[in-house]
């Protein structure tokens, strides 16, 4: 058994179909829906933590991609735009788990595997360089 976090992007034509149900029925996968944004007939985004046998997970992902659904491995929905970031450190003030911290040379580093997605850093960033992808 393994656990994996994936971000699914549904194009317009795939928004009306019960894709997640197929993952359970055909591929025997368990999943937690962590975030969902589905606008029927427009587009959708789904952040899932899926659990199952490695082969089943891979087959499930192939199935999703065959149905034009974008699948991306992901650790955190928080992204830091390095072009906008000036490494001031304001975001580290609110990151309780140390996912955002300053290196020894005072650059900002983002350990996305530690992120709990509280999203306080999005508000704390004066450069608006941090955003949630969904």
């Amino acid at each position, binding site marked *: 058994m393994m656990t994996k976090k994936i971000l699914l992007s549904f194009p317009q034509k795939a928004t009306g179909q019960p894709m997640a149900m197929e993952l359970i029925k055909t591929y025997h996968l368990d999943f937690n829906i962590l975030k969902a944004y589905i606008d029927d007939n427009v587009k959708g985004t789904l952040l899932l933590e899926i659990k199952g046998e490695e082969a089943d997970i891979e087959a499930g992902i192939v199935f999703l991609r065959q149905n034009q659904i974008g699948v991306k491995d992901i650790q955190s929905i928080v992204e830091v735009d390095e072009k906008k970031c*000036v*490494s*001031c*450190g*304001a975001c*580290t*003030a*609110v990151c309780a788990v140390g996912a955002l911290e*300053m290196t020894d*040379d*005072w*650059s900002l580093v983002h350990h996305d595997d530690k992120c709990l997605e509280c999203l*306080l850093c999005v*508000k*704390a960033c*004066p*450069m*608006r360089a941090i955003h949630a992808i969904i």
Partner: protein
Amino acid sequence: MAKTYQEINEKIARGEAVVVTAEEVIDIVKERGVKEAAEYVDVVTTATFGPMCSSGAFLNFGHSDPPIRMGEITMNGVEAYGGLAAVDTYLGATQPSQDKGIEYGGAHVIHDLIAGKEVHLVAKSQGTDCYPRKELDTWVKLEDLNEAYLFNPRNVYQNYNAAINASSHRMYTYMGILQPNMGNITYSTSGELSPLLNDPLLKTIGMGTRIFFGGAQGHVSWMGTQFNTACPRDDKGYPQTPGATLALIGNMKEMNPKYIRGAVYEGYGTSMFVGVGIPIPILNEEIMAFVSVENKDLYTNVIDYSVPKKAKPSLKKVSYAELRSGSVDINGKIIKTSPLSSLKMAREIAEELTNWIKKGEFFLQEPIQSFPMGNAIKGLEIKEGESR
């Protein structure tokens, strides 16, 4: 052996000046001692890159045909001051836009102008005999303007408080987000690299001092507002609370958008990150001793921002070395510390200024007037009564 500004400038012109940053000079003084180091080093560069709200730009748009005496002015929806002459304005960094609020303010317009972007200019007027036009709606770029210079009334604080929140509610402040129950501490300084902490008694920094300002060569134009040289100091003279400030001036057309950036403090407002570098000439041993200061010897107070009064209590006096360590112990509680100004960018600015001087592109300007010591700041008394 003392040096003069002229002697140092002659060395810069010959490409022989020894220029190091205020961080690098610490080890040089440890190895060689103050006396020898003062002979060896000619210039020490200092820098900072942090939020400086009291900033803004004077702009002159040139006259349209027919001309207008601009009364109400907006730039990308941000109001600029209409109380100057016909096509002059002052655009303040913290002014929020009418449509996007604090997410896009005067500082962002200033950044966009420096980045060469077109800005939407709308102006209205009553119309006068000499300025008949009543409305104007156009797009301008920095290169289209006659004059455009930053004039920042209060920048590069000599020292500043660290912030904490002892209340039970999260606070959104200009010192960033402060978590309840003393959950974190924020501070804003480049410490031992900071310009005015390296010249605590303003022996070399005064009116006219040439500086690195937003990527251009600018000048110190006056003492900054809330200039406090009567602040508490340690026995060597370093301020232990907010002290001196500087008013800075520089040509926006020569600036780099990397060093002037719009900033947003959630729940507080717009601010501007300003990149400033100041060279300190090593005229004598006293000045060399001052610039060799280290973070462990520079102190500030951890102030409780949850007290809604002007005089907020200090919970602890701490050194910048303690703040930089990542945590501070207050009454047995280990509290995380976080910076708000970018030391990484400050180092980049100090390096760039060092290179300018080494390449003979930047010369030192001796102040034409020194700033007063012992200058205290006043508060504002609220007087009762509607008329007098």
